[in-house]
């Protein structure tokens, strides 16, 4: 299988951006292509499907919308009342097998793995740079780890996920692929006054 081409391929340059600081205020990094599958279920049996997921994949389905559960490499985002996103960096055979067992009466599966560009933003100024455009309170009490929001930055629809990190503030931002370059340009512009560092894709 060919490698998927990043939407940022022509504009992505690792290195410092903006003001020079001893320690970057924020690091920006594109996450490599990843598995992203959507499962949408039906009211009458969604709980049963969630139980099957927990049993087969060993991961609890988040009960509340806008929360994430993670086990090993696999994360489950509850993006809607009966809608889940399965996200992993590598192919999960068990996930593929499970999804393959589903029939339309159980729920529908939609491949959206090429639809998003994922950017990791971390560092002491991570909140600051996001709040240059994101109208969401990102402080610990309002936006703890394992929580995400779907909102808008610079008129671009985004999903912002706060990852668990013991000594750092880390967000993954999911941007529709066709907006990725516009978003990246906005992000670099916002990071420059804070002292940014673009890391190699990883």
């Amino acid at each position, binding site marked *: 299988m060919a490698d*998927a081409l990043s939407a940022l391929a022509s504009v992505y340059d690792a290195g410092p951006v903006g003001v020079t600081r001893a320690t970057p205020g924020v690091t920006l990094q594109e996450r490599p292509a990843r598995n992203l599958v959507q499962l949408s279920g039906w009211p009458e049996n969604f709980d049963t499907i969630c139980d099957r997921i927990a049993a087969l994949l060993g991961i609890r389905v988040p009960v509340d919308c806008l929360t994430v559960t993670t086990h090993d490499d696999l994360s489950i985002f509850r993006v809607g009342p009966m809608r889940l996103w399965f996200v992993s960096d590598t192919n999960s055979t068990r996930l593929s097998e499970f999804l393959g067992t589903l029939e339309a009466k159980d729920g529908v599966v*939609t491949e959206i793995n090429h639809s998003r560009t994922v950017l990791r933003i971390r560092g002491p100024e991570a909140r600051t740079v996001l*709040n240059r455009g994101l109208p969401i309170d990102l402080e610990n009490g309002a936006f703890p780890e394992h929580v995400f929001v779907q909102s808008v930055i610079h008129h671009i629809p985004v999903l912002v996920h706060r990852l668990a990190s013991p000594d750092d503030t880390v967000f993954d931002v999911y941007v529709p692929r066709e907006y*990725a370059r516009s978003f990246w340009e906005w992000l670099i512009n916002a990071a420059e006054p804070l002292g940014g560092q673009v890391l190699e894709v990883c």
Partner: protein
Amino acid sequence: MTRQSNRLQSGGRIDRSKPLSFSFDGKTYQGYAGDTLASALVANGVRLVGRSFKYHRPRGILTAGIEEPNALVTMRGGARHEPNVAATKAELYDGLEAVSQNRWPSLKHDMMSVVGLFSKLFAAGFYYKTFMGPTRGAWMVYEHFIRKAAGMGDPTTVPDADTYEKAHGFCDLLVVGAGPAGLAAAITAGRRGLRVILVEDDAQLGGSLLEAGGDAGAGEWLQSALIELDALPNVRVMTRTCVFGAYDGMTFALIERVSDHLKEPAPFQPRQRYWRIRAERAILASGQIERPLVFGNNDLPGVMLAGAVRTYVNRHAALPGRKAVVFTNNDSAYATAADLRAAGADVSLVDVRSHISGDLRERMNRSGVELHLGCAVGRANGGRQVASVDIVPFDPARPARAAIRTRLTCDLLAVSGGWTPTLHLMGQRGAKPVYDEASAALVANTIPEGFDIAGGAAGEDGLKASVAGGVRAGEAAAKACGQDGQGAQGRPLADGLADAPEVTPITPVWQIPHPLNTRARKKFVDLQHDVGAEDLELAQREGYVSVEHTKRYTTLGMANDQGKTSNLNALGIMAGLRGQPIAEVGTTTFRPPYRPVSIGVLTGPETGLHFKPSRRSPMHDWHEAQGADFTTTGLWLRPWYFPNPGETRAEAYIREAAHVRRAVGMVDVSSLGKIDVQGPDAAEFLNRVYVNGFKKLPVGKARYGVMLRPDGIVMDDGTTSRISQDHYFMTTTTGGAGKVMSHLEFLLQTAWPDLRVHVTSVTSQWAGMAIAGPRSREVLEGVISDIDLSDEGTPFMGVRHGHAGDLPVRVLRISFSGERAYEVYTPAGYGMALWQRLLEQGKSCDMCVYGVEALGALRIEKGHVAGGELEGRTTLADMGLGRMASTKKPFIGGALAQREGMIDPDRPQLVGLELANGAGTLRAGAILCDPAARYTRAIARGGSIPEPVAPNPADKGFTPGNGSGHMGHGIGFVSSVTWSPELNRNIALGYVSGGMARKGEQIDAVFPMYDELTAVRVTSPHFVDPEGERLHG
């Protein structure tokens, strides 16, 4: 460079170790760090700083804050040129350059000051009355000259050199103003653990404490408060920031002047930042604004608010005058008198009140201030600055003209007419202040939910009362936010502060009559707009009685200062004229912004290509590298055409379209909306959404579908493919994708929640490319090996899945051009790889790449509808697709599509159009008219009855000028036009009443904007291959 002639030898909050050089009107001066431009000018003895708006009268510095109406200057230059900057708020930096405004040839010798001689003539309403005629358009001539004569600084047309940012902030409590009340509120709430944002317009915290001079305990209290504030990590302090707007949901708009105090921003530093803060609670500790007094010549340079004098003396160590008169109706100006005296000035104090407290009298006596009680300044005298004042006896209860008692020479007149609480933000939320007789001020009446007020804004005078008010408001906010318990302990903030001295009540005075036996002088109420007391009288006489009407007739309270120093004096004068209490006169409405805000900061980084974000296809970089010109559709940047060197747009698209018909071409269609419709009830759902049936569409087939709005008008069209039994792949137009997606979601969530269907936008997931032309199959066969692309294997409207090498592909045999064509989709990350493989294969098939313009030409030739035809007014029948609607099932819009007006046979219907005589211009948007109606206008005007046969526009001598002779909406319109490479002539699609029944008729196409009339002939919309043979060829 001049000596700082009025700089005090010691004191002030300036840094004398950091001298700064600046220029005003080309002359170089020196100031210190901590100065404002205004204080530096005061320190250098500069009095004349501007000319007034209308009369070009000399003006000096009146205030020390954002309310300044006079000292507006133009700062910086070139791409950083900024007019109308209040010198009182411009922090001094080394190299600052400022020039005065609204004068020619110089500030000192302004030719337009002659206008002042005729000031009686140029009263309120002068322009409205004088420049009404003789014609309706005459104003447009006058306006140019009037605007040149009046006004403030000139804007620049050079693009702004600076950058701006936007930001969002959140807090439990927003405290507006960092004077004693604001500091106390922030510390109190901070101790309780609230997330607090404390906003201060000034560069330093402290508010009135910064200008308090030697007031007992003020300096120590401030220092202690700042130390504690610094230790509270949950309190964020934002200086040089102004809350200029309060909006719904406790949302506030702020402007942070990040680098206005610098000559230019540091690298990557924005000039300003626009904040939107969302708060649970807000406390206004925004203090008060002092009012001037209204008397003759009260605008002379050297007339200054008493509080401002105190600021310049105590904070900036700048002495505004050496021989001062203080004129007041309240106690606050006595502190100014004392401070001036302590700074070495000779001081006389004039008070309209006959009695003051013994304490005040004792302080003045001790300071050596000469008192004139029960008196007023009848008028000030001087040319370009105040030189003396005439003192008259004055009884506030019975104001009357009186003879001059004495004349006092002076170079400074400090005035205080009382203080008005700054309640603008609450006013913006609909809480209008009301007049309070006791304090002679506009005070809060109702307090909006979520708000509180403290300190001067709440009428709490003195340090102790302000601190106590701040503590009370801070505790209330903590309680409201659920922090009712004990937080971090701290010293009681008001402990040890002295009680306020005994106060002699203010005596409101709204204007001082002219002294007897003197000529009347202008008494200004609104100094920025040159509105005098006599203008208010004139407005009342002429019937502009309401406060809102008076404001608009006289322009009082408008422009930069928004009447901050003039509103209440105007209300007082109006009340006197109307014989009513002020409370019944009413107040005008406060609206954002509280202070001037640059357009740049509201725009933020959203400029140029980032005015809106752009959507790019997976193959965008390739298009860019090939030199494509782009067009935008629904934020998408789509390749418009690919010009060869030297080619025009028309030459390029005509070449591309012809190439497709001759051989094969490829176009990027990734921008088409793509929606997965999935679930056991997906077929039923589509059946209800589309006008035509989808239930029986076999797996592996696509079908063209049209969906209507609920009102029966066509919403969008596209093809939908059945991928599996429960999975459909819908495509929409590029511009209609969002609308269709919302429509489908809305129906599923509200109308048919029982249907087990999910819709997901997969526009981002797929790259799409269309290969069209006689040799299209040849190209695909060279790339895709596991799909039978023969007519049998992949028939017209067939859908197949396979691979192009290792790339997965979905192939739809559908055509927009009328040629044999395929749409090929692959996951977006593989889009570029597939595109290049097809390009490589295309070399052997003479394939070109074409853009949206050629795509449009091809579809118009074929008679396919698109954006121009789906324009929100057309029905299915209008498009000639009435028979497509199923009669066996209901569908959205089906019922209302049967309304009388929707099935009117005279509705315009889709037709093709051509130039009737080969002459003229076809334009999209042209109105189609019946030639027989061409002379309607002549008849309407009572002219002679025209010839029954209209002249032919192509006839020699025919002038399509003024007119076409047509009026009204015509009988239809032209929706799309193109040059047809296939037919070698201009063609168009349009809608015309009667539709194809008019085939062969000649009608008029009128384009009023260019005054054009073109004869066109109605023809079939299917210009190319009407039988569809090429689709299958």
